[in-house]
Every structure is written in structure tokens, then in C-alpha cells.
């Protein structure tokens, strides 16, 4: 049976984690997790915008607390959303957070940021490369880089819900272009809800229908919410494997089977 994932659920909103009241975040997060169970989602990636590394522990504690009250079948991962205005800031923030969270999400928009995110070995997801732009924010070079560095390209459903009819058609056009590029060059394209409250969440098939109406085959559209996120999470876990020294070199204990990847 197909499993559905939503890898960008933002209970603290787009703003910084520190700006929000922790009780408000906990309430929002627990209602989001119960909504995810209602909608038949199997895995949720909870994403926060951290400004300090000390906040990560606090957020992890909150997630564990909410997870214990939610459906035990629901799997949760914690990600860091990085909003940077320059290449230097992006790299600094990624280095700071890369091993403290389960995956790193970079919010796109600027071409330089999109390009650096696509070619950074520790970035797992580039969210909305078309945000605030008049084009799709990606070209074939970035798509090739994203495929090489195993960076997922994600588009959120929330930006469609927030947009008016004219802007929505432009966003759909940009998403279609990004899907074509990702499919051509082998980068994994992922559809996420990008929800900041429970009523912005959508079930897996509803997210996949976005790709279907853009002309993507049904099986590929479903892969955007099931296989591709799963692959991305596996790659993220592999990167954060403590026995991995650098890609290609791994500490193998005596008697451990070789899995051929590291």
C-alpha cells in the first residue's frame, strides 16, 4: 500500500521560532498531527525556522510531547527551514543546523540562493524556488545539480491557496516547468502542503491531483507525495549517519554487513 508524506508542515508559521509563544506552537502542532491522521497521511515533516541552535532541543522536546498524544502510526521528522538573503548566510546556517535536525529545507526565491541550495551537499529540500518571482526560479543547470547532490525540489500547496486566480495560474505554470525539468534531469520533485495551521493541510491524493491537472501521469504524480519524499528522507538519514566520515568512507564494525552505499 502506498504511503503518503507531507514534508513541510510549519506549526510556528513562516516567522522565526523564537517569535512565537511555545504554548501556541504546541497547540497548533498537536492539532496538525491529529489532522494528518484524519487525512490519512503516514509521515509528517515538521519544519521550524530556527535562529539559534539552542532552539532545536526545545523544538524536539515539543515534537516528542505532541507525538506521544498523537496517533502512534504517524511518523514525524523535524526539519530546519532556512531563509537566507545571501550565499554566505545560507552556508553558515546550514553548517550550524545540518546535524541537529533530520533534514534541512531552504526557502527559495533568489536565483543565487536556489543555485547554492541545489549544489549544497547538506541541503535536502529546496522549497518554492518560484516564490516571489516572475519565473520558475530554476533552470536546467540547477535541475542537474539537484539530481547530482540529491536535493529535492518542493512546491507547496499553500502558495496556491494564498494566491488570487491570476497569480495562481502563474504559479501553476512555474510548478509545471519545474516538474518538467526535474523529471528530465532526474531530480526528485516533491509536493508539500506548507501548512501553517491544520485547515491548510491536504491529503496526499489532493496534493498529487495538483500535478495530475498539470498533465503529469497519475503514477508519477503519486510518486511526488509518496516515493520521492521517502527517498529524500532516506538520503537525509544516510547523510547524518554518525559512522559516515565523508561520502564514500564509512566506519564498519567487525561483523557488520556491507550495504554497498558508503
Amino acid at each position: 500500500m502506498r504511503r503518503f508524506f507531507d514534508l513541510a508542515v510549519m506549526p510556528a508559521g513562516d516567522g522565526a521560532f523564537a517569535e512565537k509563544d511555545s504554548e501556541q506552537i504546541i497547540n497548533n502542532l498537536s492539532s496538525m498531527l491529529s489532522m494528518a491522521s484524519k487525512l490519512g497521511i503516514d509521515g509528517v515533516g515538521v519544519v521550524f525556522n530556527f535562529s539559534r541552535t539552542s532552539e532545536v532541543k526545545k523544538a524536539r522536546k515539543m515534537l516528542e510531547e505532541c507525538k506521544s498524544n498523537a496517533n502512534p502510526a504517524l511518523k514525524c521528522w523535524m526539519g530546519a527551514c532556512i531563509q537566507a538573503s545571501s550565499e554566505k548566510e545560507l552556508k553558515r546556517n546550514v553548517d550550524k543546523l545540518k546535524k541537529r535536525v533530520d533534514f534541512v529545507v531552504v526557502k527559495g526565491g533568489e536565483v543565487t540562493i536556489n543555485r547554492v541550495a541545489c549544489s549544497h551537499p547538506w541541503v535536502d529540500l529546496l522549497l518554492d524556488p518560484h516564490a516571489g518571482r516572475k519565473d520558475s526560479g530554476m533552470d536546467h543547470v540547477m535541475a542537474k545539480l539537484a539530481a547530482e547532490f540529491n536535493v529535492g525540489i518542493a512546491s507547496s500547496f499553500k502558495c496556491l491557496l494564498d494566491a488570487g486566480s491570476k497569480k495562481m495560474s502563474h504559479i501553476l505554470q512555474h510548478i509545471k516547468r519545474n516538474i518538467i525539468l526535474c523529471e528530465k534531469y532526474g531530480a526528485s520533485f516533491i509536493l508539500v502542503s506548507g501548512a501553517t495551521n491544520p485547515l491548510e493541510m491536504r491529503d496526499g491524493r489532493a496534493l498529487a491531483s495538483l500535478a495530475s491537472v498539470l498533465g503529469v501521469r497519475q503514477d508519477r504524480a503519486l510518486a511526488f507525495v509518496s516515493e520521492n519524499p521517502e527517498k529524500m528522507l532516506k538520503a537525509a538519514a544516510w547523510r547524518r549517519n554518525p559512522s559516515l566520515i565523508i561520502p564514500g568512507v564509512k566506519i564498519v564494525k567487525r561483523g557488520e554487513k556491507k550495504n554497498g552505499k558508503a
Partner: protein
Amino acid sequence: MAKLNPLPPTLREKERWVAFRIIAERDDVTFPLEKVVNSVWNACMNNFGSVGCASIMLWVPSNLYDEKKRVGVIRCTSRTVEMVRFALATITEIEGEKVVFHVLGVSGTIKRAKKKFMKD
């Protein structure tokens, strides 16, 4: 008035029945059928226009809508199920109340849709 002959089966479009549930912020709130139908039609018209809506063959049967449980069924053609799913996903509110349309499933017949998705 003379009645039209029904379309031969080979020329008929294949139907699908999309069962849905409306999830709202509050549990006690109910939505009348008219408002639900309007919001579904508006969503389809906004996303696909009049030509797209014509190909969907949209119909919300009144006898299958349960106002208390907020569960209902939408008829569409087999080729436009994904379009209906997308249109339902873009609905964010009915009468100022924030909602989510959750598709429970798709069936080929009304009988099966009732049995599978609207039993309890």
C-alpha cells in the same frame, strides 16, 4: 411532453462518485446543501472554466448529502476525478467558516459509494 430516449450505453461517459467529508474548525457547525454545491461549483469554475466544468459533468445529489455528518457525494466522469479532487482541495471556506474537503474515496456506483464511505 415527449420524453427523450436515453443515450446508448456505448456513447455514455463513465461515471465516478467522489465521496467527501467536510472538516471544519468547529465540530457543531453545519453547512446547508446549497452552500456546499455553490462552493464546489465556484471552485470548479475558477479552476477549469465553463468548458472544463462541462467535461466534468458535475452533480451533487441532494439525497446523498448528510448535513449533520457533513458527508456527501459528487458525480463526475472517470476522466475528471483528479480535476474534482484538485477543485475540492482549493476550497478553503464556506460562509466564512474555514473548511477542508477531505475525499474519502472514489466509487463506480452510488450503491458502492454509500456502502463503503457513508455507512457510519
